[in-house]
Every structure is written in structure tokens, then in C-alpha cells.
């Protein structure tokens, strides 16, 4: 990046063409993600949408938010946010997606005990009917 210019306080000035090029790329990727959403890829639709969104997001963060040229500490702070957000989502999903499963495991010994009911005689409902009738 030896051709890049710097301002009087020594800050990096991103060339105009890079800003316009990134903007254009973001618009093209928007068109791609809209088009792909109308193609049925089953469960892959959401994966593709998130990958494209992440590419767009990275371009915004690296060039518009200047992370590529700035001190690395800002990238670290930003990545920490994303890291903890992914922990937040992943651990919550472990719970909410598996709630039904743990019930099956827990209910197994209960069902074993409950099998004695299968050998019990069926209650006589006709007798009950007779008492009601009187």
C-alpha cells in the first residue's frame, strides 16, 4: 500500500476507488443474496445467506470502519463482541434444541417402572355404570 496517502496527522487515507469498489461489491452481493433466496436449497438457504452477509459485514468492517488500516486493538474489541455473541447463540441452542431429547432420556426409567400397569386388570367400567344407574 505504498501508493496510499496519509493526512497531516499521519492517518491513512483510503483511495476513492477502494471506497467505490467496496460499495459496488456490497450492492452486487445484495443482488446475489436476493437471487439465491428464491432458489430452494433446503436447509442450505440460511447458511448461504449468512455466509454472504458475513462477507458483506467483513467488507464494511475492514474498509468502511477502517479496521484493516487501524491499530489491531480495535479489531480485537470487535472480535470479542462477535465471539461472545456466538457463545451466547451456541449455548442457548444446545438448550432449546435439545429440550425434548432430555425428556426422553429422563422418562426412560419412569416408563420401565410404569410397565407394571400393563399387567394390571382393566378396571370394570360396567360395574360403575350400574351404581350410577341406581
Amino acid at each position, binding site marked *: 500500500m505504498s501508493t496510499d496517502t496519509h493526512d497531516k496527522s499521519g492517518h491513512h487515507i483510503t483511495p476513492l476507488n477502494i471506497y467505490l469498489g467496496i460499495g459496488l461489491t456490497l450492492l452486487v452481493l445484495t443482488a446475489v443474496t436476493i437471487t439465491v433466496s428464491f432458489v430452494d436449497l433446503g436447509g442450505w438457504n440460511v447458511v448461504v445467506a449468512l455466509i454472504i452477509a458475513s462477507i458483506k459485514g467483513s467488507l464494511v468492517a475492514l474498509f468502511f470502519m477502517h479496521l484493516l488500516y487501524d491499530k489491531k486493538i*480495535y479489531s480485537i474489541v470487535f472480535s470479542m*463482541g462477535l465471539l461472545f455473541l456466538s457463545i451466547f447463540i451456541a449455548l442457548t441452542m444446545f438448550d432449546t434444541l435439545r429440550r425434548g431429547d432430555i425428556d426422553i432420556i429422563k422418562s426412560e426409567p419412569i416408563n420401565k417402572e410404569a410397565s407394571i400397569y400393563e399387567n394390571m386388570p382393566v378396571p370394570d367400567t360396567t360395574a360403575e355404570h350400574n351404581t350410577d344407574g341406581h
Partner: protein
Amino acid sequence: MDHSQNRPAYLQHHFSDVTQQAESAKLGMWVFLLTEILLFGGLFVAYSIFRSWNPEMFYNAHKYLDVTLGSINTVVLITSSVTMALAIRSMQLGQKQKTLALLWSTLILASVFLVIKYFEYSHKFHLGQLPGKYYTFTGVEGNNPHIFFSIYFVMTGLHGIHVLVGMAVITWMIIKTSRNKFSSEYYTPLELTGLYWHLVDLIWIYLFPLLYLIG
């Protein structure tokens, strides 16, 4: 203070030099943006839970969002991010009039975004696709479609509030720029406004496919 002669007016007395001041301000802004990610993060978690529990309903309900208006708003917001970045670049080059023109463009694009959002919202209000217990629409197949619209309104609503706050800050920056508060040596507030505005764009980049483009 006897050392004040060598210090520019924009340098606060508790910083030893201009670089330290600029870097501290930027670090503070990034920490704030981190809390913003976590604020929206809670909503993205809620989205993940309810979508994973009701994939069919989410698919059916999302068809009632207008992809054309959503796409136009995406283009509007990306363009506003470009004008914001260029506004800062112009100030780095000391071009005040260009900076002002680009800040105004950003402000106008932001208001276009909110006007489109207003039309989307009022259409949904009209149909009764309201959040929670106010939901009266009967057209969506699947269980509890009001959940989708609750998430839609809270996520886009919080994002809309951020656009509104961004517009207020950009207006403030227009005033400061026209009063010659910034130069090619000092434009930190402009830079921080830019960071905030790009984050608002960044969040929309995820909201758009997750709400409008469920495949």
C-alpha cells in the same frame, strides 16, 4: 497553563498529545459498539430460538414482508455508508464543502430509509400484523405467527431507533463542520459518527436476509 501555547484548541488538557486523544476516543467508541453488538445479540438469540422451533411458520410468515422495499432499503443504507466514508475522506483532505455535501447525502438517504420503513409498518398495522396480543391477521399458516411479527417489529424497530439517533448525530456533525470545528488534523467526532453509522449498516446487512429472505 504555560504549556497551552503548543497545544491545539481541540486537544483536551487530560491528554498528552493529539494521537493519544484520537486513539482513546476511538477505543471508547469500539467498546460502545461492542455493547451494541450484544444488545442486538439478545434479539438475534431470540430469533434463533423461535426460528428453530417454528421453521415452517417463519417461512410462511416472512412471505408477508415486502422483498422489494427491503431490497431498496438495503441499497439505500449501503449507499449511505459509502457517502459517510467519503465524507470523512473529504475532511482528511481538508475539503469542507465536499464533506458537508456528503454528510447531507447521508442524512437524506437515512430519512429515505425511515420513510420506506414507515410505509412497510403502516401496511402491516393496517392488516393487523402487529406484535404479541395485538396480532389479528389470520392469513399465515402455522402456529403462533404473531411470534414472527413480534421479532420483526422489535428487531427492525430497535434498528430504526438507531437510524434515528444516527440522523441526529449526523446533523450535529453537519453543524460542527459548517462552524469550522474540523480540519484535516482533527476530525475524530466525524470518524466516530462514521463507525456508528457503519455498524447500523452492518446490523441491517444481517437483518435483511434473516427476515425478508427466508429460503
